[in-house]
C-alpha cells in the first residue's frame, strides 16, 4: 500500500498546464525526492497535495483516504505538514512562538476559558511552551527561543520551518527545497538532520531539492518532472543513468563531474 498516491493529476492555470497527468506513489516510511528544472511544476505538486490549489483532473489519496481538493486547514488533521520554498515563517514573532502556534492544535481549551485565563489555561500554556521547546531542541534552536524569527540566519530559518512542521506531528512531511541557499557542507548537515528526524518520528518524506548530493544521499525513490510532466522515476542509480533525465535536467556532464 502506498502512503501518498497521485493518480493522473492535472492542473491548468487558464491556458497554462502546470502539471499534466502526474501519477506518483510514495510508500510508508520512504524518503522520496521530486526533482526537475525550475518551472517544472514541483511546488505546484506540493500545493495540490496540501489543498492550496485543487487539481483540474485526477485524484490524490493519503493513507487510503481521498484528499483531493481538501481545504488547506484540514490537511494537518490528516497528518501532512510542509515547509515552503520561499520561507514562510511568522516573521515578527519569536522562534518559540512560531513553534507554539503549531503545538496549539494539540492542546485544546475553550475560548471562554481563554478570555478569563482560568488556571487550566495557564497549565495548558505551560505544556505548550514545554512541548515547543522540545521541538526546538530537536533541530538545535532551543537557545534561540526568544529571538525574533526574521533575525535568524537563513539556514536556521529553514530549520525553524522544519521544527514548526514537525510540531504538527505529521506522518508525511513535505520539504520544499530545505537546503536552498546552503553551501555544500551545510546542505549535507541538513541531510543528516533529515535522516535523523525521519527515523525518530517514523516519517514519510517527500522533498524537492536542487542539491543533487542531498537528493542522491537521502532519497530511495526519485521522481523527475519536466514541463509539468513526469519524465522518470526510480532509484538514484537509475535516475543518474537515465538519458532523458541527463538531457533535461542533470546535464550530460553530470556523471563525469561526479566521478571526478
Amino acid at each position, binding site marked *: 500500500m502506498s502512503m501518498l498516491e497521485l493518480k493522473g493529476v492535472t492542473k491548468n492555470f487558464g491556458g497554462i498546464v502546470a502539471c499534466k497527468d502526474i501519477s506518483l506513489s510514495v510508500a510508508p516510511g520512504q524518503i522520496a525526492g521530486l526533482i526537475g528544472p525550475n518551472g517544472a511544476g514541483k511546488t505546484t505538486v506540493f500545493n495540490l497535495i*496540501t489543498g*492550496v490549489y485543487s487539481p483540474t483532473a485526477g485524484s490524490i489519496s493519503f493513507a487510503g483516504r481521498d484528499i483531493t481538493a481538501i481545504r*488547506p*486547514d*484540514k*490537511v*494537518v*488533521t490528516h497528518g501532512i*505538514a*510542509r515547509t*515552503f520554498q520561499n520561507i*514562510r*515563517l*511568522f*516573521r*515578527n*514573532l519569536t522562534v518559540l*512562538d512560531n513553534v*507554539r*502556534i*503549531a503545538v*496549539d*492544535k494539540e*492542546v485544546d*481549551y475553550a*475560548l471562554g476559558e*481563554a*478570555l*478569563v*485565563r482560568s488556571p487550566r*489555561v495557564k497549565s495548558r*500554556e505551560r505544556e*505548550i511552551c514545554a512541548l515547543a521547546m522540545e521541538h526546538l531542541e530537536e533541530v538545535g534552536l532551543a537557545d534561540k*527561543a*526568544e*529571538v525574533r524569527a526574521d533575525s535568524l540566519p537563513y539556514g536556521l530559518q529553514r530549520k525553524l520551518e522544519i521544527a*514548526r*512542521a514537525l510540531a*504538527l506531528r505529521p506522518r508525511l512531511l513535505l520539504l520544499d527545497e530545505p537546503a536552498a541557499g546552503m553551501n555544500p557542507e551545510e546542505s549535507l548537515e541538513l541531510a543528516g538532520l533529515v535522516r535523523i528526524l525521519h527515523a525518530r518520528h517514523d516519517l514519510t518524506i517527500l522533498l524537492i531539492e536542487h542539491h543533487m548530493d542531498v537528493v542522491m544521499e537521502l532519497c530511495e525513490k526519485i521522481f523527475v518532472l519536466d514541463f509539468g510532466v513526469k519524465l522518470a522515476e526510480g532509484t538514484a542509480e537509475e535516475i543518474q543513468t537515465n538519458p532523458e533525465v541527463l538531457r533535461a535536467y542533470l546535464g550530460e556532464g553530470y556523471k563525469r563531474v561526479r566521478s571526478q
Partner: protein
Amino acid sequence: MLEYVSGIITFSLIYVIATVGLAVFTGFTGLFSLGHAAFFAIGAYTAGILTYFYDVNFWAALAAGVAVSSLVGVLIGYPTLRAKLRSDYFAIATLGFGEAVRVLLENLDITQGARGLPGIASETTLPIVIVFTVLVLWVARNFVHSRYGRAAIAVREDFVAAEMMGINLFQVRMRSLVFSAGCAGLAGGLFAHYVSFIQPGMFTAALSTQLTASVVAGGMGSITGPTVAAVLFVAVPEALRMASMWRLVAYGFLLVAIMVFRPQGLFGFREISWQSCVRCFRKKPAAAGGGAGQ
C-alpha cells in the same frame, strides 16, 4: 474644572474600550475596518432605545447593546470574511457598512431620525467606565496571549503558513471581528448614557477613522499602545481647545509625525507591562542582549 477633567477621562476611556476592541481585530488579524463607528452606534442606539423607550435596566441595556453589535458583527463578517476579501477591499466593504448604518439611523422611526434621542438617562459614571476599561483590557490581553490570539497573529503574519498549521482563516477573523464589535457596542452603550443625547451625526466615518488611527498610531499588534494613543487622541484636541482652529492642525501634525518617526506605531509590537517598567528603571544588563527572561 474637576468635572471637566473627569469628563475628559471618561470620554478617553470610552474610546479606549472601542479602540482596544479594534486593536484585537486590526492589530492582530491585519484587516482594516473603516466602519467601526457603526458598531459603536448600534451599541449606543440599542442601549439608548431600551432605557429611553422601554425603561429597561441600564445594565441589561448595556448587555443588549453588546449582544446586538456582536450579532451585526457576525452578519457583516459572514459575507465579507468568507469571501477572503483582501485587506483593502475589506476596508471598503466596512466603509460602506458604516455609512449604511448611519443612513439607516437617520431614517428609522424608532431612532427618531436626525433629531436623535435627547434625554437618555445619565447612568454612566467615571468609576463604571474605569471598571469596564480594566475588564476589557484584561480580557483582551488574555485573548491575545491564548492560542486564539496566536492563531490571529499567525493569520496576520502569513495566512498561507497559518492554514498549514490547521488554522481556519474565516473562524479566526470572525472571532476577532465579533470581539471588536462587542467592545465597540459596549463603548457605545456607555457613551449614550454618559452624554444623554445621541444622534446619527455622532457616528460618522470620522469616528471610524479615529479608532483605526489610534490602533495604527499605537502599534499594530499591541494592546497597550492603542490604549495610550486613544487617550492621546481624545485628550490632545481637548487640551488644545483654547488654540481653537489650530488644534486640528496640531492633531494632523501629530499623526503625520507618528507615521514618519514611528511607522510601526508608538509601541510597535511591544506592550507596557510591569516587567518592562522595572527594566526601564534598572540598568540594562551588559552584553546580555536582553532575552534573559524565562
